[in-house]
């Protein structure tokens, strides 16, 4: 067994995203970092991908025949991304059933490097309170600043956090919006470093757009943030849909990078939550219950 830098077995055993499959060139070694380990990956161009610990004989940007690579790590292709694990991963990645719906636009909005711990980034993703101040005139606007009462549960059988009945006034909820509207949100946290949100589709009031953030922990205080869009939009080019989401994420970035302390404190007394932070409180408790130590400041025992 190879010695790993990360000693958190819960995190080691997870599936972690490395790259959007559409952005991995065929037959060429791509380098990345996961949990402080240098990894390499390559695709054969027909949907097969290999991931391995980086080695000198297979340099980044060099050619590779993936069938000849020995000692590869587990690989899963899900939601348009390449996933791997440095431990003993579960058989399946958490489900996003909407991804199978044929009429959705499925895109990697971008993969951005962010100077933040993965749990801090998840918490920000769950927070509606910042919409009017950080995403002014897009996801919120004064005076519509109130985060109305919503429900949060930790689902035991699915082992995930679910926040429902969230509702927020948004001037421009998506590329298909034609004006301000009250938008319904559902948040899921099915993985310590991944979250999936569902929001009202301006195109079809019976369906929800899906936006997910999959965080690749580079180390305890840096991530590569992969943003999946799985939305209903018949009008706009891919790049317009991506641009909208990148604009939002670019607004969050300085907020994320200025969080202090960088690792998420799990002690309930460490930071003072308000009612709107209900989902964040559940998230911190869930991480504590799982025994996660990587990217957090564990509660004193």
């Amino acid at each position, binding site marked *: 067994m190879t010695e790993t830098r990360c000693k958190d077995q819960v995190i080691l055993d997870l599936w972690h995203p490395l790259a*959007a499959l559409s*952005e991995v060139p065929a037959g060429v070694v791509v380098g990345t970092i996961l949990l402080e380990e240098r990894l390499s990956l390559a695709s054969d161009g027909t949907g097969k991908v290999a991931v391995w610990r980086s080695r000198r004989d297979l340099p980044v940007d060099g050619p590779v025949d993936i069938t000849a690579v020995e000692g590869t790590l587990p690989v899963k292709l899900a939601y348009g991304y390449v996933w791997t694990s440095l431990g003993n991963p579960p058989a399946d990645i958490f489900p996003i059933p909407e991804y199978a719906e044929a009429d959705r636009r499925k895109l*990697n909005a*971008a*993969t*951005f*490097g*962010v*100077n933040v711990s993965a749990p801090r980034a998840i918490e920000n993703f769950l927070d509606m309170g910042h919409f009017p101040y950080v995403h002014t005139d897009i996801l919120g606007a004064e005076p519509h600043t109130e985060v109305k009462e919503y429900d949060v549960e930790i689902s035991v059988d699915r082992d995930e956090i679910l926040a429902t009945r969230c509702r927020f006034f948004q001037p421009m909820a998506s590329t298909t919006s034609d004006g301000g509207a009250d938008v319904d949100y559902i948040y899921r946290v099915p993985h310590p470093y991944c979250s999936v949100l569902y929001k009202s589709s301006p195109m079809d009031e019976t369906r929800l757009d899906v936006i997910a953030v999959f965080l690749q922990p580079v180390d305890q205080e840096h991530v*590569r943030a992969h943003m999946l869009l799985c939305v209903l939009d018949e009008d706009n*080019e*891919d*790049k*317009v849909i*991506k*641009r909208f989401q*990148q*604009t*939002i*994420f*670019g*607004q969050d*970035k*300085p907020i994320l*990078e*200025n969080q202090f302390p960088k690792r998420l404190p799990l002690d309930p007394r460490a930071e003072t939550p308000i009612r709107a932070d209900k989902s964040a409180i559940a998230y911190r408790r869930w991480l504590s219950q799982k025994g996660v130590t990587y990217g957090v400041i564990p509660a004193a025992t």
Partner: protein
Amino acid sequence: MITLYDYELSGNCYKLRLLMGMLGIEWKTVPVDFYPGREHKSDWFLKINPLGQLPVIDDDGLILRDAQAILVYLASKYDASGSWYPRDNPALLGEISQWLAFADGITGTASAARLHDALFYDFDVEAARAGAHRLFRILDEHLWFGEQEGRSWICSAAQPTIADIACFPYIMLSEEGGIPRQDYPAIRRWCDRVKRIKGFSVMSGVFPAGPAKAA
């Protein structure tokens, strides 16, 4: 109408959006998927700009590249007040050109560090950060001495010039490249003054300033 080939997260594109907003010019945006799509290296874009760089404008058939060059053009053509690029003041034009070149240096350092950290460009990030700090130190001292002489802007003029616009974006975005600005108080005060210019607009990563304190 002006067409701007634009990427939202580009500080160089933001320079043009900023000045056009301040001058009250209307424009049309053609989004370019700079990242992750690398559309600025695509065949259709290379026909517009063989350098494969953003931004580019098309003003009624006149195609121009290079943020600094376009600032010169826009101010010369559309600024009725003549204050952003005063064509009748040779000394000031010299100063402006000097600081436009300096702005290119900021792009080569502070912006490079940001591209390394956020978009995984293979640059020597330590060299880029050191280079940015060297330029920020020079600009901070220049602005500090200017303040002592009652000057608010980079050049020796009572009004802001395109030099201020050219230097502003990648200074404001420097923290995304791991370049903090706490050691540059005169730069921070100048950034707030730029944010209070009439017609100022933000981009992702740049927040508006609060109202100035009454003097």
